[in-house]
């Protein structure tokens, strides 16, 4: 009996001492990335594995206006393949503006298709802002956006992607000027990483989303850009199975001499331009 009690005690201590401590794994001082000072709020974190253990790009795909979609309002959801743009079981398109997580599920596009609602493993961490279904700035401004410079960010997913249908990114542009309501053309490089156990490296698959007209200082309005994997990758579509990481970088397309997209650039007269990411969506994906 005493041995059993001692074993139970030992097991308990072992459990505690080897605790995962998940809940304190990613902590920040105060309101991280929400200081109200533009230059302090860049999120530029790259997972070490995506910096140091990456193979050369396996394949590059061009995402063009032909094989992609761009959504600014409810009617634009009809660009999606059926029945993706419609509320479940109806012919009513999703609401672009209704994006209160949970409450607007089944009605708003973001709340109905976000990654957290697909798998709650996405709920933890700063990047949960990109997975929560808030696709725009509606007063939750600082609570939902992730501000990046050209070098972007790279993160591992909490699980591996098993099935996937299409990708969507809710985004807007911002600079520190007083100018309002204009577009900046941007090339977004989206990379998915699939871990190859044989070479112990992450193999990147690059999607170049070129010349996207980004609403900038546009009353905080966003645009959803996206593409169907089958539409862009064709027969290669299965290559992304077990993808476990993703990165986003960007560059400016065109003549923007007065802009810099390097957060460290202190050149006088240069205006800092940043992308404000609101949501990364992989609707109808499954994860393992």
């Amino acid at each position, binding site marked *: 009996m005493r041995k059993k009690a001692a074993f139970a005690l030992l097991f308990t201590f072992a*459990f505690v001492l080897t*605790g995962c*401590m998940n809940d304190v794994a*990613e902590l*920040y*001082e105060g309101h991280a990335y929400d200081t109200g000072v533009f230059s302090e709020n860049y999120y530029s974190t790259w997972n070490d594995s995506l910096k140091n253990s990456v193979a050369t790009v396996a394949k590059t795909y061009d995402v063009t206006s032909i094989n992609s979609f761009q959504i600014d309002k409810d009617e634009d959801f009809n660009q999606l393949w059926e029945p993706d743009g419609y509320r479940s079981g109806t012919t009513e398109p999703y609401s672009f503006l209704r994006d209160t997580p949970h409450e607007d599920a089944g009605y708003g596009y973001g709340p109905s298709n976000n990654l957290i609602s697909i798998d709650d493993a996405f*709920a*933890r*961490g700063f990047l*949960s802002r990109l997975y929560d279904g808030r696709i725009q700035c509606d007063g939750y401004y600082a609570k939902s956006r992730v501000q990046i410079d050209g070098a972007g960010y790279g993160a591992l997913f909490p699980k591996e992607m098993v099935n996937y249908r299409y990708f969507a990114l809710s985004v807007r542009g911002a600079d520190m000027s007083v100018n309002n309501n204009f577009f900046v053309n941007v090339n977004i490089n989206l990379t998915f990483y699939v871990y190859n156990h044989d070479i112990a490296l992450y193999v990147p698959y690059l999607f170049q989303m070129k010349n996207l007209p980004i609403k900038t200082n546009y009353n905080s309005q966003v645009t959803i850009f996206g593409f169907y994997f089958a539409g862009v990758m064709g027969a290669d579509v299965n290559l992304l199975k077990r993808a476990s990481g993703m990165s986003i970088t960007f560059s400016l397309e065109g003549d923007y001499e007065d802009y810099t997209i390097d957060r460290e650039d202190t050149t006088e007269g240069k205006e800092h331009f940043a992308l404000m990411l609101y949501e990364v969506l992989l609707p109808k994906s499954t994860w393992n």
Partner: protein
Amino acid sequence: MDLKKRLYALVDKYDALIIFLVIECLALTAFSLADANIIFRYLGFLISLVLIPFALMFTSKREWLSLGLFSIPLVIIAFLTGFSTFTLSMGFGTLDNLSVVLGTLAFFFLGFAVRRVRKFKIDIALLAIGAAMALLVFLGLIYSLYQYGPFHASLYEGLVYYYDGRLFVVSEETKWLLGFSFVEISINYVSLFGAMLSTALTALLYISPKTEPRKFAIVAVIGLIGLLSIVLIPNIEALILLIPVFLFALGYRFIRSREKVGIVVQYAFFALLGIAGIALLVVILNNAGVSFIRNALAGNAFLNRLFNTNRIMSPVNAVLAPMFTAGGFFGFPITYIDGLVANTGAFEFEIVKEGGLLAFLAIIAFLLLVIFSLARYSAKSPDKGHIKIVILSLLIAVFLNGSLLWDTFPLIYESDYYFSFFRSAPYLIVLFLIGYAYYPLSGKPLIEEPEEIVLASETANADHLANSDEEEIKL
């Protein structure tokens, strides 16, 4: 008389079963199994019905009268926390609301009546409550240590993390088994349970580890789980609130000349009561809009700071002021959002939201009656020292935690989910103990009159008891 004999025989036959049911009900409530307090309230009500014959047989008329007067505020509390503008607008549901009324009265009555069952031992009931609650707290503690590590509230003080796109302060939360899953909950909520368990340690002042090693070990484990659940977070405020509890226990155990000290304590208590009463009256009149009080407070910088603009009084005023309006008289409707979200941290003021002015006055009256009853219980009851010290310490601990650290919105991720103190498991346990420790404000309970105990224990004397005792209720 046949009926009476038959009743005695019935009572003798089924008392063990009734005791088992009572203890089972208390243990399930203390463990908050499946977070199904509604079921435990109804269960308590059903068991209390069974206990009615016991109460009728072993309670004198004078006691019934005293109990009736004592219970008036509790009846008001029960009805107004069950059915009010607040509960109706929150949509709790009629069955749930009815269970609050019945459960509140039933758990108090359970404590009162079960003491009349001869074979009932409060030691066992306290151990069952302690063990069940300790298991609940232990599970939360282990999972919390697993997820945060020890001392996370200090080590990561002020640090935040993100969940579901939202920001949370890690040092304000811990893990808790709610229903069948773990949730993130405020450390103050958990510390209430920890404080209740910690009071078991006070019993060790009476239990000898040499002569009663088993009891000593069980009580120590229960108490330590409670204490560790506070220390390992750590919740400094809850730890500070344990100091007066343990000081009281030490004083209760070791001060020899109790009568002399008792008089001093009595004077000090009445002095404190007077000051608190005047302060409360000023606060109430201020919120009732009595102009000369309001102007006097607002016109003096110190008084204004004391009664209006400090961080304790601001939420209290936000709650008290609406109770004088027609809409808030019987609890707040959902439109009284400022009053509803004001975090007073005190169940005495939270009841205003739930039941309005009458409930507020009733809880104040009930608290006073309980204090007087407990003082008599402490001085007069033949219960063993370790029983009395645990009951008194536990009630003091709940009073302090409930008055200063009660968190109405303890769920971290569902911060709009209202937790009512008057629908909680600790409240039911406390009511049971108040009922158990209930002592008439004059005279002794019938069960503690030596001759009555003898009479009650011997069926043969039943007739004599029924014929001779004028005070016993006629069946």
